[in-house]
């Protein structure tokens, strides 16, 4: 028994996180809409598509694939007439020069999260996260389900990035100050 316990504790593994299917579905549906409320996004993308990137840890590749499928099923390469593409990228392969419109981060370890969000904020890229606790790293949006669906908008991250959204969005979200 002792050896089994030691094995369980110390074995470094590659996989592990069970995602909530409904939450993934809600975020896949709602996050692109939040992005569409960013000021001037449509004028910047009359021809070139908006690239919405799902960022994942290597062990979550299958989950990321499913999220991409979900988003594509909701928004079939176009959002209100604006070209819209969903891509996926592992943390280590993320190129912010290419994935510059928005990133949606699934689970990752704290270091990966911190590093990725910091870089994205520097480039003024809106960051959406799966888990609301990752707002503490400076992500902009997190959708959770409480008594009802709640969208948290990180006020500190909003100020730092200087991003602007349609005023009506501010009436829907709940502000938090998380750094």
């Amino acid at each position, binding site marked *: 028994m002792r050896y089994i316990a030691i094995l369980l504790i110390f074995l470094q593994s590659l996989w592990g996180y*069970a995602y909530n299917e409904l939450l993934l579905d809600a975020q896949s549906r709602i996050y692109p*809409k939040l992005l569409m*409320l960013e000021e001037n996004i449509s004028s910047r993308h009359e021809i070139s598509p908006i690239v919405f990137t799902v960022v994942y840890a290597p062990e979550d590749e299958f989950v990321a694939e499913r999220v991409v499928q979900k988003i594509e099923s909701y928004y079939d390469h176009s959002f209100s007439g604006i070209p819209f593409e969903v891509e996926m990228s592992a943390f280590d392969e993320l190129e912010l020069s290419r994935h510059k419109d928005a990133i949606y981060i699934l689970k990752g370890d704290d270091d990966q999260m911190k590093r990725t969000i910091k870089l994205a904020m520097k480039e003024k890229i809106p960051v959406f996260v799966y888990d609301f606790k990752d707002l503490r790293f400076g992500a902009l949006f997190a959708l959770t389900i409480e*008594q009802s*669906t709640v969208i948290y908008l990180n006020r500190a991250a909003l100020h730092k990035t200087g991003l602007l959204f349609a005023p*009506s969005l501010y009436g829907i979200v709940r502000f*938090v100050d998380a750094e």
Partner: protein
Amino acid sequence: MCKRVLSIFITAVCSFAAGKESLVVDTLVSDMNTFGKLAESVKMSEPFQPYIVSVFLGYELESIGVSNLQEALELVPGIDLATDNVDNKHIVFRGSNPFAYGQSKLFIDGVEVNNIFFDSYGSFLSMPIEMIKRIEVTRGPGSVSDGVSAYAGSIRVITYAEHLKGESEKNRVFLKRGTYLHRVGGFTYGYDRENFSIFTELYFQKDDKSLPVGKDALSTGIYGPLNVALSKSGNAPLWMKNYAAAIRMQYGNFKLIGRALYDKRGSAYGINGALPQKSDHTKFPTTYLQMDYDIDAGNLSSVARVGWIDSAFESKAKLLPDNFNAGAGIVYPNGFYGEHVAKQRTLYQTTYAQYSGWRDHILNFGYYIEYIETYKVVTRTTDRLTGIGIVDYSQTYPFLDPNANRRTYRLFFQDRYRHSEKLAVQYGINAEKVSHIKTQINPRIALVYQEDPVNIFKLIYSRSSRTPSWQELYTLNNHARVGNRDLKPETVNAYEMAYIHKFSVDSFIQLNLFYLHNSDQINNINPDNQYRNSSSSNIYGMEAELKTPVGLHGTLYANYSYAYGKEDHRYPIANAARHMIKGYYLHQFTDKLSAGISGQYVGSKERVWYDYRSKLGSYTTVDLSAGYHDWRSGLRIQLALKNIFDATVKYPSPPYNYDNDFTQEGRTVMLTVAKAF
């Protein structure tokens, strides 16, 4: 001119943009409402709801080697298992009356499946975990929103018939093989097309389990000193043959749910406490059909429902041994045989509605009407006078009132008022009139205060009542179980408090405190074996639950529960464990390989006050499991070793029964191969 044209153009562009933005916001709000409702229906928003609920997901339970519904429920805080002479297992919530069956209700896809005779659901506890998508266990009386008010707790099993958009693994097939020649097979299959969907499931399982048991009830002298020498010990026949088929169809607003369960099992420890023969058996078949018509008209939605349930209790067994002396000079030289059949049917109709047009309020209201009757009673036994030959006593000496029937009328109302972002209040009332029983008024009020995204507080008061079961009311001509038509319903006043701290989307710690005042508790633990409203009890306790990821690759779940109380202010509550600790740790080694360890500690149990035996000892079991799961192909292979240290697990027997209690299985193994597609 140019300026004017430019101005018109800019205005037009801005209006267009504003219109587009407004459209996006409108659909965004609509999506948020849709997902909010959906999350509530699948109990994802459970920490914020006005109940104390534990939710377990089928796939997670499969990964830690859980094999069926019973094993899943053993993980729930505050829940213990009990059994009886026919191994009709039932769940005991928070130590509340372990002798009654119907204090909790089991719902499968929204249909209450407690049988009529015992008001129990033991036959469904062996339901394979592969059929179960989610289990929601509400401790305490729970909701009145759809007219069903449980007493000590309710268990809702949701099968894969519930299929949300984007979910995979609707269809699956599985085979299992384990100790005691346990063989299980089954499948689920669903098909959707526009406004039509159909879902079917089927499973079959059998085993040849028998477990050693000590001297039977005759050794205690309960059948007189002349029969003590006839007492036997040996193996109790606990084999089973259990299969079920279910269908769920939806076409537009119509929904049809049907299920047939056949459950045949060895006579276990014998209805009368005499060790049965291997071929002796009981059956608990249940069949039901329920039709719903849903109406959704903006702020008002309603469901009109009609249903039919047929359930039975059947027993064919040698109830007393050879040369049993029945007194008055009557001896049964070849023992006493009995064939007993009691069939009941239920018809019910309910309509309930939800209105959300009043700002910050959600109103639920409706009625429920039910008629239950016994339509067949068979009593064939050894000739009671000569002791030789079989005589049909169905007319002259039935074991159950053949004319038993009951009508139930229920009205219910509930309002969920959202006072602010932080505070929600739910209050409601359930009024129930049952034939021959005084009208019961059961109120409920619950407050949920959400300090911030991570801290939630709940305060709940509820009253509930349990109508006596068929067995308790209408059993006749049986010295071991004597029915009583004058029984009053059991009642409970429950006070509960909960605090939840959420660390992340799926990690939390929850602390519950409760106090239950139970009145008119029913049991037949008395010299006449007659069901009586024999006592009241005050039970208080707590439950602590923790679930947290361990790194990115592990999940830890653990809970501790404590329950203590006294009956009639004098005697400690009987057959209830004061301390229980349960939990599991699941670790993913690769994207396909996982291993889990789970276990439970169930503390010692006091006996009924006049029972001469010392209290029942505690036990600890540890299970191990290892699994291979290829998410892409859907193939899963799972090996589970249960109770690896072969701990002695015993459920308490009543006084003057099997003195050595009811021993459960020791170390077992189960191999599962499943494929989702």
